[in-house]
Each structure stands twice: as structure tokens, then as C-alpha cells.
């Protein structure tokens, strides 16, 4: 094989051009790094789509999205990659609020500003971030408590079906629910709390055991997401128990809204991935422009949905 001198020269020129134009566009464009826990989670997947669609409307913004596929180690590697690609701002939705802290520290040390989104890092990570934008899990627990207290007339026995044990989302939703109930409805007793790992099949098993143990003593069930709440609604319906049990979920997903409309569950609160993504992008751009954030914690609105207003809402995910 023979390569002529002219073609080598052409290649060199082409390469120089590529590098040159590449560096120009890199300076021109704002590059946002987005580290997400798993593109396989419906909320996150809807968030990513909304975020990329919003960013595509802006000509000078490009987004690098990495999914950790529910693996803590992979999220650490993803953030490492985004640091070495020198993104202008790093958005992190932590898979685990505590495990992510060392990665946040590294990005901070590399001089990359961080906005935590959708899932807040733990206390130790707060000093490395510019702020937070997204829903508030603890507040969701509190809202669930308010829905429950109102529906039960501030008295009765409830149980909690939790997410994955030890996860910050689970802990915060449980803590918020317990605190708020103790405050506004001290006559409501929490009989038990057991994990179902966000798995509707496991949630059914847990709910069946609760019904076996407590039977008609039970007045309410707080399940920490809509899908497990809807699955539990089926268990209660099929159990033939002659009593209205108030089931409250969180999320405002399509499945949750439908479950309220069909009477499987009583209530939930909205958490809109598109509002979450829009706000995250806006605040990220503020950070790049050197502007200060409206607040340190910028919580998206989370309106209550019950049979009274379920027809006004559509789930997004």
C-alpha cells in the first residue's frame, strides 16, 4: 500500500482543522454534564428526555448525560468522566446521597460548579454543591401525612410500606411522614413499617401480611410510590375486607392518577419530571452565567391529588 505525500499533508491539515474548530465550539458552547442514577427508572428517563429537549431549544448548550444503571461505583466513574471532560456545570442526581459525596468533593476540587438535582446529597455533600433543585422527599412524606390525616379525621391505625431500606429517599419519606403525623394527628398510630424495595410484587406480599396481622384494625396505608400503592390497592380490593382503607402513594405518575380515578388508592402528590428538568436547566445556566440561585434549596411544586381533583391532572411518567 502506498500513501502519497499529498494525502498525508491533507490528513494533517484536516486533523488540525478538526482540533481547531473543536476547541472553538467547545468554548462557544455551554457543556452541561448530567449524571443520573439509572435511565431505566421511569421518572429519571422522563426527566432526561425533558432536559435534553429543553436544552436542544437553546443553540449554545450541549448536554452530556450519563446513566449509572443503579450502580454506585458506576456513578462515581461517570462523574470522574464528566470532570475530565471539563463540563461547565455538573448536575448530579445521586443514586445514593451518601455514597456520592466523595465524587462531589472531587468535582468541587477540580473547580466544576455542581447543582444537585432530583435527589439531594446527604449533609456531608452539601458544602460541595452550589444548591439543589428538585422535589423534597421529606416534604413528600409530610404531604402524605396531611392527606392521610384529613382522610382519616385525625384518628386510626396506619402502616408504612417503604422503598428500599437505607436509601435516602426511603428514609426521608418515612421521617417526614412520621414527624408530620406526630405533629398534626397524634391520635393516628403507626402500627408497622416494612420495606418493599419499590417492587409491586413485594409490596403485595407485605400488604397481605399486614392485612393478615391487623385485619380491620387497619385504617390507612402509606406506600412510598404510586406503583406499589396501586398494587396494594389491588390487594385490599381482592381481600374482600369490608372496610375502606385509605391508601396514599407519592409521585403523581400515570399509574397513580389512574389508581385514584378508579378508586384503587386515595391520594398522592404530583412530582413532574418536566417541571423538575426545566427548573434544573434554568438554574444550571444561572450558575454558568455566574448568577446566584434564587434559593439554596429550590423545591418544585408538589400539589396534592385526591379523588376531588384527579381529573385535573395527567401523569407524565
Amino acid at each position, binding site marked *: 500500500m502506498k500513501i502519497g505525500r499529498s494525502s498525508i499533508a491533507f490528513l494533517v491539515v484536516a486533523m488540525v482543522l478538526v482540533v481547531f474548530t473543536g476547541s472553538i465550539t467547545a468554548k462557544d458552547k455551554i457543556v452541561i454534564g448530567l449524571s443520573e442514577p439509572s435511565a431505566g427508572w421511569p421518572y429519571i428517563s422522563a426527566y432526561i428526555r425533558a432536559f435534553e429537549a429543553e436544552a436542544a431549544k437553546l443553540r449554545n448548550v450541549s448536554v452530556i448525560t450519563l446513566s449509572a444503571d443503579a450502580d454506585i461505583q458506576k456513578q462515581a466513574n461517570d462523574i470522574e468522566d464528566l470532570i475530565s471532560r471539563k463540563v461547565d456545570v455538573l448536575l448530579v442526581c445521586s443514586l445514593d446521597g451518601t455514597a456520592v459525596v466523595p465524587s462531589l468533593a472531587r468535582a468541587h476540587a477540580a473547580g466544576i460548579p455542581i447543582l444537585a438535582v432530583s435527589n439531594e446529597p446527604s449533609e456531608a455533600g452539601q458544602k460541595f454543591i452550589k444548591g439543589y433543585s428538585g422535589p423534597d422527599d421529606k416534604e413528600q412524606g409530610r404531604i402524605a401525612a396531611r392527606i392521610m390525616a384529613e382522610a382519616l379525621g385525625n384518628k386510626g391505625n396506619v402502616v408504612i410500606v417503604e422503598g428500599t431500606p437505607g436509601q435516602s429517599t426511603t428514609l426521608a419519606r418515612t421521617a417526614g411522614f412520621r414527624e408530620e403525623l406526630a405533629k398534626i394527628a397524634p391520635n393516628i398510630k403507626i402500627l408497622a413499617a416494612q420495606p418493599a424495595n419499590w417492587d409491586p410484587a413485594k409490596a403485595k406480599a407485605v400488604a397481605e401480611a399486614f392485612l393478615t*396481622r391487623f385485619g380491620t384494625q387497619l385504617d390507612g396505608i402509606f406506600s412510598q410510590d404510586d406503583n406499589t400503592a396501586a398494587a396494594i390497592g389491588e390487594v385490599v380490593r381482592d381481600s374482600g375486607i369490608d372496610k375502606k382503607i385509605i391508601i396514599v402513594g407519592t409521585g403523581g405518575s400515570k399509574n397513580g392518577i389512574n389508581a385514584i380515578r378508579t378508586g384503587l388508592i386515595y391520594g398522592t402528590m404530583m412530582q413532574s419530571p418536566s417541571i423538575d428538568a426545566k427548573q434544573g436547566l434554568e438554574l444550571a445556566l444561572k450558575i454558568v452565567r455566574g448568577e446566584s440561585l434564587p434559593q439554596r434549596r429550590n423545591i418544585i411544586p408538589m400539589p396534592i391529588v385526591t379523588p376531588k381533583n384527579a381529573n385535573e391532572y395527567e401523569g407524565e411518567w
Partner: protein
Amino acid sequence: MRQGTSSVRTGGPNQSWYAAILQKYSIWVVLMLLVLGMGLLSDVFLTWGNIFNVLRQASIIGIVAVGMTFVIIGGGFDLSVGAVLAFSAIMSIQMQPVTPGRTALAVLLPLLVGVTTGTVNGFLVGFLRVNPFITTLGTQFVALGITLLYTNGQHVWVWNPDPVYAAIGGGFLGPVPIPVLIFAGVAALGHLVLSYTNFGQYLMATGANEGAAVLSGIRTLWIKVASFIIVGTTAALGGVVLGSRVKNLDPTAGIGYEFEIITAVVLGGTSLSGGRGSVLNTVAGVLILTLIANAMTLLNISHHYQLVIRGLILVGSVALDASSRRRTA
């Protein structure tokens, strides 16, 4: 050839037949002890309602564990069952089984997927001699990836399913839940095939000593492929039951089920090095795992203690089972 499968052989002349049976099925004794213990701790544990709940909860894992018993006895291993189960469940729901015709699709297409992945795994392991651990880890990722592409990362559900479809996971025959009947049928069939057919004998021989099995004229490669097809099919069947049971699923559902399934099989005394195992003991293993989960919830034990207690019971059961085996050897 049936090395280690029959404790009657090792029992000795002065050992009574019931002692031999007791040793062969010692894991059932462990199960009975747990049932009695829980009966004493909780007054609602031994109610029919709870017993059928536990059996129904055991059925999905149980169906797949029967298939897994075959593949492990044959000297293989299948990590892809959780992902195949999830894909089948999601595909089953995505068929939107709201009419009898769609229900047929929602059952048959996932089963076809199960047979296909089983065949692919079997050929890779059997003919290309790729390590089963790596092979099925690979197919696990592929299945997970296809699930995400198929669902676009979104939740799937069917809101008003056809009554036949709803019955697969939620129906009853008399007092007995349909999934329990499916589980019992699969286990009975599995037991018959493993214990009373040539295929069962060949599978044990292949797992125990493949070289010797080849020399005695067994086509071990095809035996292995068949064992992977069996586990693939049971994973898909488990997925169909799961789909019908919950009717709403995340694309990442089913991840981690493979560990529960493999734990149940090993708890049932099936040797991870192949050649020895029993479907009936796998059933006991599945029931023990499910029963522990049910007991923990009934007693409302906090998750941290649950892990410790679950671990202790598992280690204890295996130790008890192993020591009774050693006494016979």
C-alpha cells in the same frame, strides 16, 4: 453414575428406610421446624389465608427455581433469569392483554423469548464452551438493555385486563390461588422428569462427571442445551405470572430475583458443582425463603435485624442439612 444422588445407597444395611428419607429430605424438616416456630410466635401465621398468601408469594420465584435446579445439576448456572423474567413480564403486559386473543399472545410470546434465550445460553455454554457465569451475565445485560429499549425506559401497565389474563396471577381454583397451582404443576413435572426419565439420569451424569458421561455415550452438549432451555422457559413463565399478578412494572423489575432463585436452589441442597440435586428440596428452599420474609413482616422486625436473622437462618439451614448429609456418607 448416580453418584451422590441416592442416600439410600450410602445408608448402610442397618439404617431404616424412614431415616434414609429423613436424611434425603432434611431441608423439609428445617421447613417444618420454622413453620412450628412461627406458629408459636404469631397467632395469625397458621391461618389458611396466610398460608395461601405465602404459597402464592413463593410461586414466581419457585417456578424459576425448578428450572434453575436442572441447569445447576447439569453443571451450569444462569444469572440471566431475573432479566429474562422481567423482560417476559413486561412484554406480557405490553401485549395489552385486554381480549382473549391478546391474552394468548401475552402468554405465548414471552415463552418464546424464554425458549430463545435459553437456547442461546445453552449453545454458548454447551458448544462454544464459554463459562456459564460470564455467558449468562452477558445475556442478562442484553435482556436488560432490550427491555429498556422496548419500554423506552418507561413504566408499563395494563389497566383493564381480560379476565383470563388477570386469573393467571390473581385467580383461584376453590381456595387455591392459580399461581400456586402453576408452581405445583411445574414442580411435579420437574420432579418426574428429573427422577424418572433417562433425561434426568443423563443430566445428573453430565453434571457429576462430563467426561465419564461422554464415554458412556451421553450426548452431554445437547443435555446442557436442554437444561438451559428449561430454565429459560421457567423464567419466562415466572415472568408471565408476575406480569399478571402486578399488571404494572418498571423496566428494571426483576433485577436481583436471580440471587433469590439461586439461593433457594442451593438451600435445597443442589450442589453448585453439579451432578446432585432435587426438585422437591428446591421447593422446600423456596418455601423457607418466602416464609422468612412473611414472618419478618408479620412480626414487624426492623430491616437491620431482618438481614441478620435471615442470614443466620440461611447459614443454619445449610449447616443442618450438610451435617445430616455427612452422617450418611
